[in-house]
């Protein structure tokens, strides 16, 4: 089986504090993979290492068989890796339409053109509108992103990530802070958008994790504790200890 993403003995530290202590992660082509773990397990750091925000102190990251350890985020994106952000990361002074337009531009590879106005780039407006319709954001087309409701801005966040049409999507707590209904909608949206793609999701909401994921990796103190199907993970004793025991001891 071919892996779309593979990390080999990944290590990272902040000022000597070891956060990732040798992680070997393997994501299969087309699977939905969840990463869970108690607070401080290093989930977000691992995420940032994979997407290129930090450069790991040690180890390699292979994406589609290519070593991307030293590549900048924009290059990883061009290879087909997209990510969303835990804290909604949008453009304050731009409309919903303009957001997706930027994503589509990137997908089309129109990046440095300053001779042709955007209205004249072939198929651009149509594609954006189609995408808006697909995720039910058409009615907010010309509204500023900063004025959207929380649920809608999260939806825009995810749609924007998908606008560049990545093969592997990394979603960082897409459902954090949502109400039950919003979460249901979000999960639906994720399903809809990631059909046929590989996906890594970091999430605290176990319902989301177990309803979405094909496989689950449990991270604990910067190491992989277990990696298996959701049902196996639920039975795993180490995982229970890590979550509950840890909590018990503290109390």
């Amino acid at each position: 089986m071919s892996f779309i993403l593979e990390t080999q003995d990944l290590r990272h530290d902040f000022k000597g504090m070891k956060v990732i202590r040798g992680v070997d992660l393997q994501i299969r082509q087309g699977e939905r993979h969840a990463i869970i773990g108690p607070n401080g397990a290093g989930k977000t750091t691992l995420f940032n290492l994979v997407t290129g925000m930090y450069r790991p102190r040690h180890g390699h990251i292979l994406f589609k068989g290519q070593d991307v350890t030293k590549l900048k985020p924009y290059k990883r994106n061009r290879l087909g890796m997209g990510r969303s952000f835990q804290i909604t990361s949008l453009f304050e002074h731009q409309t919903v339409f303009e957001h997706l337009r930027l994503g589509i531009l990137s997908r089309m590879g129109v990046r440095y053109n300053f001779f042709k106005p955007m209205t004249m780039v072939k198929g651009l407006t149509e594609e954006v509108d189609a995408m808006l319709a697909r995720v039910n954001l058409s009615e907010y087309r010309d509204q500023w992103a900063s004025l959207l409701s929380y649920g809608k801005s999260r939806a825009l966040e995810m749609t924007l990530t998908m606008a560049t049409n990545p093969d592997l999507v990394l979603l960082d707590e897409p459902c954090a802070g949502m109400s039950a209904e919003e979460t249901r909608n979000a999960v639906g949206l994720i399903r809809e958008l990631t059909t046929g793609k590989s996906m890594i999701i970091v999430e605290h909401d176990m319902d989301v994790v177990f309803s979405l994921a094909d496989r689950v990796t449990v991270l604990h103190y910067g190491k992989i504790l277990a990696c298996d199907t959701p049902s196996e993970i639920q039975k795993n004793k180490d995982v229970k200890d890590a979550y509950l025991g840890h909590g018990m001891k503290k109390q």
Partner: protein
Amino acid sequence: MAGNIKKLVLGFILLGAIGIAPRFLGIISLNMAVELAIGALFAVSLNLLLSYTGLLSFGHALFFGMGAYVMGISITYMDGITLIPAILMGSLAAGLTALIFTPLLVRVTGTAFSMLTMAFGQLMYVLCIKMRGITGGEDGLTLFDMPLLSVPGVFSLDMTDPATLYYTVMGVVLISIGCMWYFTKTPLGGVQAGIRDNAQRVEYLGFHVSASKAVIFIISGTFAGLAGCLAAIFQQVISVDGFLRINVSFMPIMAIMIGGLGHFLGPVIGTIFLMFLNQMAMRYTDKVELVFGIVFIMVVMYAPYGIHGLWVKARIYWGIFRHRKGALGKEERT
């Protein structure tokens, strides 16, 4: 659509006014208009960085001066050169300077960017004084024998004639500002706005932020250089004080702030306001700086988005006022 037509008509009226102005204005007003236009071009080029990319440059005079000096030097030391190649050399040199500095500048943002640009600007200022053999030191270069703006056999314009200078400068400035406006509508312009709001996100969308910034920086520098060339043609003396001093960098920032941050034509409004303020202050008092200081304080305190911000606010209040009036009217009727 109606709004667009309104804007178009307004634009044509403005264009017409600019076209026939020399018939009504004296030389002084004409020259003031020229100075204004140059200042506006310079400020708009900076605004491309400030309002559209979120980069506050304290050293934009570097490019302004670079354009002027390279043009001046080529006229002084190259016999028989006409103005067009000299201007082209000037603006391209400014663009080239931007290109040279970009590897250092694109890495930084915020305060660090401002400081680094200021350092380079000041360094150029002292270097220009030091290289007095070429630049004429503080005395500067004099271009009293201004070559003609000509294409042999096609046309030839005398830049020492106020009306000709006026039309030429207005033409160049309008086209340049038009180019920059057009630029904000292109894909790179879109990327630029994205960088201003959230550079990290743009990077994760697959755009090379540093390279995009570099292109924008070079475009802005080139137009600043062009403004410098025009200013040199207008003043006929290129001196470090007039082109490279830190005040030269500050003036367009003031213009942008007063005109309205975030608006494309804010700097134009700001430049007009500053010029007007300077004239008024000079007429009534010797304490011009005091007036400027108080105005700056007032603007920041009470109109943080400048004149454009005030205008928007006024329109909102006007809307509320009309709405209330309308509501009242309805109430009375019922």
